[in-house]
């Protein structure tokens, strides 16, 4: 019961954070709302007994992603944010997303998976699997990261004087 209450609180945090991202007029506020939402997600992870992933979430999202976004905000000086906020035909978008939401919820309710037994995925099992069966994809993922790193540098590097 308590966990349910905590879940509701955390959900509220997540949703508020998300709403902040899409509604706030100030872009820095939006970034901080995103941080809130991400932290909330980590909370959900903890509630569902996935501590390791929660830590990863906080480290990568809370630590890295939001920081990078803030850096991006700092590097792009925007004078008139108001003109940059929302497009004019937002009701259409709102309608569309509402339909998506309804669809998803309908789909979820159709699924009829109703279970309550929370269970822990043992960290040992998880890591064994990750490095045994998913070893090669995991290594490839690291390669992808490396490539992305190099790619980002290449994209941002000035090519001589032509810019």
């Amino acid at each position, binding site marked *: 019961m308590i966990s349910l209450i905590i879940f509701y609180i955390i959900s509220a945090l997540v949703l508020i954070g998300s709403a902040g991202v899409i509604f706030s007029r100030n872009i820095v506020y939006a970034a901080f709302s995103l941080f809130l939402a991400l932290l909330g997600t980590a909370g959900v992870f903890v509630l569902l007994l996935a501590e390791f992933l929660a830590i990863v979430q906080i480290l990568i999202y809370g630590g890295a992603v939001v920081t990078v976004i803030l850096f991006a905000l700092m590097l792009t000086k925007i004078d008139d944010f108001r003109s940059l906020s929302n*497009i004019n035909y937002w009701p259409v*978008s709102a309608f*569309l997303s509402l339909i*998506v939401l309804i*669809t998803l919820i309908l*789909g979820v309710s159709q699924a009829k998976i109703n279970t309550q037994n929370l269970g822990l995925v043992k960290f040992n099992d998880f890591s064994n699997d990750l490095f045994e069966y998913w070893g090669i994809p995991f290594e490839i993922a690291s390669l992808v990261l490396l490539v992305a790193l190099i790619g980002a540098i290449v994209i941002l590097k000035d090519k001589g004087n032509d810019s």
Partner: protein
Amino acid sequence: MGVNLAYFPPVICGISFILTVFFTRKAPLISSLISVFAILSSFILFIFILIDFLSPNLNSIDFSIDWIDVLDTRISWGILLDSLSVTMLGLITLVALLVQVYSISYMKGDSRFGWYFSVHSLFAAAMIAVVLVDNLLLMYFAWELVGLGSYLLIGFWYEKRAASEAAKKAFITTRIGDVALLIGIILIFKSTGTFNISSIFHIANNGGINENILTISTFLIFLGAMGKSAQFPFHVWLPDAMEGPTPVSALIHAATMVAAGVYLVARMMPLFSLAPYVLDFVVFIGLFTFIFGGTMAIVMHDIKRVLAYSTISHLGLMMLSLGFMGIASAIFHLIVHGVSKALLFLGAGSLMHEMEGETDIRNMGGLVNKMPITAITFIIGSVSLAGIIPLSGFFSKDEILLTVFEKGGILILFLTLIGAFLSSLYMFRLTFITFFGSLKSDNSKIGESPILMTLPLILLALLAIFMSALLLEISTFKGFIFFISGYKAHLNLLLIVFSSILSFVALILAWFIYIKDSKYLTDWFKLNMNCFYKLLLNKYYIDELYQYVINQIVLRFAQFIALFDRLVVNDIGVDKSSLSVKSLGLKLKFIQTGKMHGYAISMVIGFLILIFTWAIL
């Protein structure tokens, strides 16, 4: 010894072919010796086989090599030895032997001397296989190889455009018949499940083949025989085939390959006898070709072409006999005609050899003094073919006339006699123009041919004289005819007298026209027969007709298809459709506005559509 070695002749000749093609290309003389040796040993083997065959306790031959074996369908090489095939084997090996010996001298100095003998070996192997093999499909196998040998030998001097065209014409014309033959063979296979000739006869005699199928397939087989034996609509290749070396004409286009068609019909006679309509057709074609070929032979100026049309005509006579189921008489005539015609061709070759390739008989004349051996043997050959009484040609022709008289009635007999008359007439015309009269060319160097060429001539001439006696055994009427069909020959005096009179009339007529040069007769002919003469000289315009059909219909159709393929299938079907995709793309590209929100919204809409489709399904 004997029949158990029956598979040796084709094998020996085949080995000789391989040896001469691959190993002795640098030494043409050795090639020729190998080839002659192979055919000589085949002939000796034939004698052994014959002796064995005539002895009362004949062993059955168990010889079989699988060629193809798919589940229950087995096609294997085997030997079928009966009087028919033994006879043919004798004819083939003998004539081939003599022709090859002759060729050593005739072809001396040719740049492809070795190759000539290689092909002769190939041809001999294939031809012997045709008559010996016991399997219809493999008979077709050898049959086509015979065609190949003929193609290579006709086109032997391929630098001459005419020779290569003639070779092509011969192969394609016979090939058209062969298509029919193959279909016929496969049809028989479809209903009997076997290619083995004796099994097929067994099944057919027990009514195992549907009557319609039997009629159709024998008809198709006969078409194949018509192609090889140059019967009426397919006869056009044989005169052109004279572009090849003359000994080749003697071997292939007189005695052996063209006889294959007759042999095939004789061999398949148990099937033909069950198909009366086809037999009627055989009679019709044979009779027509007999007269048709004779008319053209009368007017030709080229010595080899006269002989070629004469061959066509006599093959028609054999077919006629076969149409009345007279196997024995047909084969008898085949042998006699083969020997005589080979003699004539070799004689013509001897003439050409001395006259530096001259073939037009109008430029010859009076050669009887210059080349006595050639002249005498040639005359013996033509008299034999003209059917003058003591020579073998008379007896064989008479045997056929008798068959026709007994089975066909008086009308067909009458038409046959017309053909026989024509046959005598052109033979005498040829002899008179060529050997008698005045010497046309003032070439005094003309002399007798070398011994290697005259020896075969003499041998063949002796055969042409005495063969009937050998084969017919006049005293007892128990000879060759009996050998083939167990049926005693008998002579009809009335017929003998009548046909002899006809031959003599022809002799006298020819004498008047060509030696005496009687003004009255020639004028009459010139006045009344001019357009007919022109028609004959142009071979009834059949070559032109075929050429027209090929050029205007077949080739036009092919060009149309080629153009259709390029313009319709490729340019419209393929290129246009790819171009339409391209133009569609050019139109559709304007959907790409570059606005990110448009893309995002379409993504969401697409996602929704997918979801709903899935949900509905």
